[in-house]
């Protein structure tokens, strides 16, 4: 076992919680299950690593870096929520975009990327029946690929969606170009959507969550224990509450919505607070950065609107999160002196 293989293995063993390590190693299949059962997973990670290493050496006399990277991928695919995932979008599809299939994609992608950069190691693994996982360790002319800080890419074949984890700006154009060519597209761009949970941003972008649309049937209101008051007022309140809830659900989805953590708005609009002539007459924009954050942003915003902490109808700025599938916006005025706003995407 060479030095790099050792280091990567050590990192995986350290990173995986002891409770899950057995399962991950079993899926990997390089160590017989019988021997795994004999391992004591409650000892220190240091001891555990030595045990795993010796088991690996006993069982497969030529355990290579490739095998260890596979182990890392197995764990990562099972636990993708470890940092920030960014969504990207492939655009300008070729006519034969629908015919791209896995084998062809694998060959093409590897070939294209190695054409662009000499020292790079790529590992591709199909997870379920839709997602393709790519692990890339980058190097350059003078350095071997850095296996300790790999980039992960998740792509759903025949769709324009790509999700990227830990990609430096230096390697971005290389990855984009290789992906664009391998998937038969014209270009690729940032979707301005990021989050900690891969599943959530994927479901969010692919709209696989429950959206609310107006129906002919009234939404059942949840029962509440409130002190009895004037029935008329109560009725009016209930009606308003129902209306707000409906609007909130239409804007932010209902039930089990994807978990987004933040939404950021860069405001470059003219000041239009009330009763301030000096600033209202100013030509230059009032520059501010607004960041909403919550453990589950869409649920919080929904509650904010339905509980009356925000005025209805929901402003397009907020409903754009779900409608455009983004959580980063740059807001400018549509031409100077015009009060209406337009969304301008950041370059």
């Amino acid at each position, binding site marked *: 076992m060479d030095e790099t293989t050792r280091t990567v293995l050590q990192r995986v063993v350290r990173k995986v919680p002891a409770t899950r390590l057995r399962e991950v190693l079993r899926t990997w299949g390089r160590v017989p299950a019988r021997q795994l059962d004999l391992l004591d997973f409650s000892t220190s990670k240091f001891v555990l690593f030595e045990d795993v290493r010796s088991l690996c050496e006993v069982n497969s006399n030529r355990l290579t870096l490739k095998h260890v990277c596979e182990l890392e991928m197995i764990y990562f695919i099972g636990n993708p929520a470890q940092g920030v995932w960014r969504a990207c979008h492939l655009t300008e599809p070729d006519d034969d975009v629908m015919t791209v299939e896995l084998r062809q994609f694998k060959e093409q992608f590897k070939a294209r990327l190695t054409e662009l950069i000499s020292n790079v190691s790529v590992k591709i693994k199909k997870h379920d029946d839709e997602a393709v996982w790519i692990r890339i360790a980058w190097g350059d002319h003078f350095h071997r690929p850095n296996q300790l800080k790999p980039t992960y890419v998740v792509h759903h074949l025949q769709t324009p969606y790509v999700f990227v984890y830990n990609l430096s700006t230096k390697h971005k154009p290389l990855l984009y170009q290789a992906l664009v060519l391998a998937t038969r597209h014209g270009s690729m761009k940032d979707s301005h959507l990021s989050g900690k949970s891969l599943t959530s941003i994927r479901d969010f972008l692919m709209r696989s969550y429950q959206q609310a649309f107006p129906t002919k049937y009234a939404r059942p209101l949840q029962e509440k224990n409130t002190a009895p008051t004037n029935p008329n007022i109560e009725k009016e309140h209930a009606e308003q509450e129902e209306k707000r809830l409906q609007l909130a659900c239409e804007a932010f989805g209902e039930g089990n919505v994807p978990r987004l953590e933040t939404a950021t708005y860069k405001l470059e609009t003219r000041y239009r*607070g009330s009763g301030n002539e000096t600033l209202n007459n100013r030509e230059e924009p*009032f520059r501010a950065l*607004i*960041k*909403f954050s919550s453990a589950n942003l869409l649920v*919080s915003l929904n509650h*904010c609107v339905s509980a009356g902490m925000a005025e209805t109808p929901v*402003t397009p700025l907020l409903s754009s999160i779900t409608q455009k599938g983004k959580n980063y916006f740059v807001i400018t005025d549509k031409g100077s002196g015009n009060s209406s706003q337009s969304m301008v995407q950041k370059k």
Partner: protein
Amino acid sequence: MESPVTRLPTRRRTKSYGRSCFEASSRFAYTSGQLTILRIPTTREAPRARNIAERVDPEQVTLLIKNEWKLSYVTPLYRFRHTHLKKYSKHLSAFIAAEKQQGTAVEVGLETGYRVTFSTVLGIAETDEDAETVFIQIQSKPMFAATGDALKVVWSGWLTCVNGSPEYLHSLLPDFVSLPLFCSSGPENITVVVKSWFEKMFDCRFGSLGLDSTSLQWLCALWTGCHPDNNIRYLRLLWTLPTQPPLDVSYTVNPQDAWELWNSVRQEDSVDGTVGIDEVKHFMAGLESHFFRHFKIYLSSGTLRKVSTALGSAQQDGKVKILCSDYLATVLTLLTECAILKMPI
């Protein structure tokens, strides 16, 4: 577009989450024996940049601005003498050692002992009535320290009084020294021990000191006003709305734009070096209504939790960081006042 932020004080919506903008303008407080009425000031002196190094030992200044401080208030200290600091240092060291022996509170690594140093920071006090600031540093002596090793600072804290209310200070009985603001930084268990030592020694009481939204708004406006002299780099406000789960809204304003807004709400007749509460409230309303215009969310339904600029930051839960010493007096005046107001009997 009309924004509700500005009309809030006069008209209330059916369902209000907001706290009223103007908090109780006066408070009754007992000081030892005498009843006084303490007023929250409606005007303050505009901050003027002052090179504090001319008055205070620069080394001591760096001690004050380095850390994030957790605030508490302290009732007047009985028979505290600035001349006995050496004795206090020994006492407190012994006290901590005793506490450690009992195994009750202090247990920080492998240290064998602590060295406590009390010192006076001269020049922080602004008036003759203000007692001089006292700084306490606790260093640990590692078990296997070589002779040349520097001692590690494990805890620091200070007691201060800047522009303390003269009515209040005059009402104190003889033998009492008021240093109402206590700032601490370090492990909580040491803070507990230090507080209990003070309580035993000087018959005083400590209590946690949070900053209400008015205090935070004051700081926000005062810091913004400093911009022309001292770049604030950004003005950041953090609200938390009571949604389920809670929604944090961070609002960062370009420093120049924030200052222009502040400048536009300054009243003609107040340019004589004072700042009025009305101006502060207008400034906040101006920020909130710009936000409302975009997001239709009532920030007033939430709580202002944190205010920060490059000059310093302050949080609702009583954590304060002073990053620029030039405005030390302004900030400490405000905090001293909060401490005196918060104090019971």
